[in-house]
């Protein structure tokens, strides 16, 4: 079997010295080019698991391998320069212009000025922002525009892998759906491998190739959405049925009927 791009092996993490575990015994493999959505309720351990991949959180047990190499064997800062990271808080640097924000990782990698300028222009276009946005400062942007810059910043150094932690969680529903499908298009066009944490099942079903369901720090099931719908685990089956049931109820309500 071909080694997956991202491989998690018996991952465990405790924040209280071993009394309880936020994540325990999780095995997960993500093949190159896959869009994986990590779903589950709050406190299920999704974000913790995601952050072990770029070492924002160090696991207490198990090993994470990226392209066959253990991430623990690489310097954390250098590892992260090769992985895109987008999260709900966005975290644009308020003292830097949009262009400077996007250029952060290329500068850390020592790109030339000309390469950086060209790349910034390319990325603004890629995430659907006008070129003159480069000179603006983050506090003059709307929430959706800020996260577009966040995505551009994460993509700047052409990382093969993107980690996204509830990236659209703070946006209103229209912009959220818009940005979600825009990112899915980028994922396909750039041949990325994406792991996205979300608690929104609908979003996960719409965007992901595969899904992994977590509960209480354990991985309950993983597979394509259709496979999971047929899961023998009642929790997984119920979870997977929720979006369709919701959509049916919404449709029924709008037609004036009762469910």
């Amino acid at each position, binding site marked *: 079997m071909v080694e997956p791009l991202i491989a998690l092996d018996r991952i465990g993490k405790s924040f209280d010295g071993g009394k309880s575990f936020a994540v325990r015994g999780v095995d997960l493999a993500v093949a190159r080019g896959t869009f994986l959505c990590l779903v589950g309720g709050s406190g299920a351990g999704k974000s913790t698991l995601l952050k072990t991949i770029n070492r924002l959180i160090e696991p207490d047990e198990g090993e994470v391998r990226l392209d066959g190499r253990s991430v623990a064997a690489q310097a954390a800062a250098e*590892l992260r320069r090769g992985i895109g990271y987008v999260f709900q808080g966005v975290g644009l640097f308020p003292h830097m212009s949009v262009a400077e924000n996007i250029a952060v990782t290329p500068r*850390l990698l020592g790109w030339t000025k000309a390469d950086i300028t060209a790349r910034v222009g390319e990325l603004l276009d890629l995430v659907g922002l006008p070129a003159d946005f480069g000179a603006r400062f983050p506090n003059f942007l709307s929430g959706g525009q800020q996260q577009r810059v966040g995505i551009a910043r994460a993509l700047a150094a052409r990382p093969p892998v993107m980690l996204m932690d509830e990236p659209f969680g703070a946006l209103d529903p229209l912009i959220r759906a818009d940005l979600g499908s825009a990112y899915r298009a980028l994922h396909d066009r750039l041949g990325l491998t994406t792991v996205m944490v979300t608690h929104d099942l609908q979003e996960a079903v719409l965007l992901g190739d595969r899904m992994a369901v977590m509960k209480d720090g354990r991985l309950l099931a993983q597979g394509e959405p259709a496979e999971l719908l047929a899961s023998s685990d009642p929790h997984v089956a119920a979870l997977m049925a929720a979006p369709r049931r919701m959509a049916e109820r919404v449709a029924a309500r709008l037609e004036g009927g009762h469910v």
Partner: protein
Amino acid sequence: MSDQLAAAWRMLPGALAGHVLLSACALLLGLAVSLPLAVLAARHAKVRWPALALASLVQTVPSLALLALFYPLLLAVSAVMRPLIGHGLPALGFLPSLLALTLYSMLPILRTGVAGLTGIDPAVLEAADGAGMTASQKLWRVQAPLAAPVVMAGVRTAAVWTIGAATLSTPVGQTSLGDYIFSGLQTENWVYVLFGCAASAILALTADQLLGLIEAGARRRDGRRMALGAAGLVIGVLACLAPAAAGQIGAPSRTYVIGAKNFSEQFTLAALIGERLEADGAAVSIKQGLGSAVIFRALASGGIDAYVDYSGTLWTNVLGRRDTPAPAVMLADLKRELMARHGVVMLGPLGFENAYVLAMESGRARALGVANIADLAPHAPDLTLGSDLEFLSRPEWTALKSAYGLSFRAERSYSPTFMYSALKDGQADVISAFSSDGRIAADGLTVLADPKHAIPSYDAVLLISPKRANDARLRRALAPLIGEIDVASMRQANLMVDRDQDKRTPAQAAALLESGLR
């Protein structure tokens, strides 16, 4: 008035240079210590609490006391270091002032530094980590620029505090704008006091505005504004130091340092010695406002070259003696002991005494038939004693009380000026005065003799530091003063400086003494 102002202006280049050099060094050192400490404290809660608590504790010590504390501290460190490295540390002047002010400047920088760093949005820090910054890249590219405006507000506060507190370095022997304030307070020269306050306030405001420009630049990410503020600071500091530095280059390298305690007579005598040395072509600097205990140590260690002290003070404070031998015996013993113990040369007495005496209005003394303290004793229970602020707690008063059995109806303390007016108004019948005070003659007071010699004699004597013991020029300049200044001349000179109307500077009083020499 205009004489006073002109004299004040002449002192300005030296005082300003000393003040600016001290404040700038203290602030830079304070930044160099506080900023790394703030970074450490922001990262580790275990460092944060003790660092901030310690800085706050320093702040609760009055700044004058903090400056004073470094004197014994440095003396002790110096005593430990001397056998190790062959020489000690200067316990007076620049070093203790620098250390005290550095400590004093730390709290606002540390506090705003920690607040600035811990106040950064955690999402921004997560983004910095996620983008692949190392800890130091995160500090310099993200944390420092975001905390800078907050820290600059602390630096401004620290600068204003430091420049203000630097005026208090005068009593430990550092030249500063405080020289005006301390000498002005002693001689009741309000022109000097106001001049010193105004100069230090203008300096503090200027520094604050320039730092404010940097702060505004940091807040608005305007590099030009920041550069302008920084350039203004550098140019300002250099401009303040330049005149003094130029003077240093032109002057002979061996400047004579003359010391003075904190009252008019001392200022006048230091000015007199300084004038005589300058007339002989020497460069002179005067350190005034030094405390009684500090000044002798400074002389013994070579920090100052010469000053005038009083035999009784040296006898009790330096030699630790409690007996009161005849004046001639005391002078001979002092000369021998000061040389043997400290290598200090006592050149000789100037010819007048500045002792604690009891004085009464002449008419009152005649009416009561009082010529000396023994005559006063039977009348004392009907009389009120007015004293200065420290006399009643000094050993001289204890000695007088027990020798003559003095018991007054009441004892009241006044500041010196009010003590004389209390005597005039009849609120006090007898006062404790200094025998060389000009107001004794001016107010027509009778000084009561001390037939039992309960109070030791306080002959003014010239002292020379061990390293200048064989300095021909210094001896040549000082020798003509020995035995040539009588108490009447000294009183007249003191009165010129102390009186309220037609007040003169110590330099003018020194000129009067000079003209009275043969």
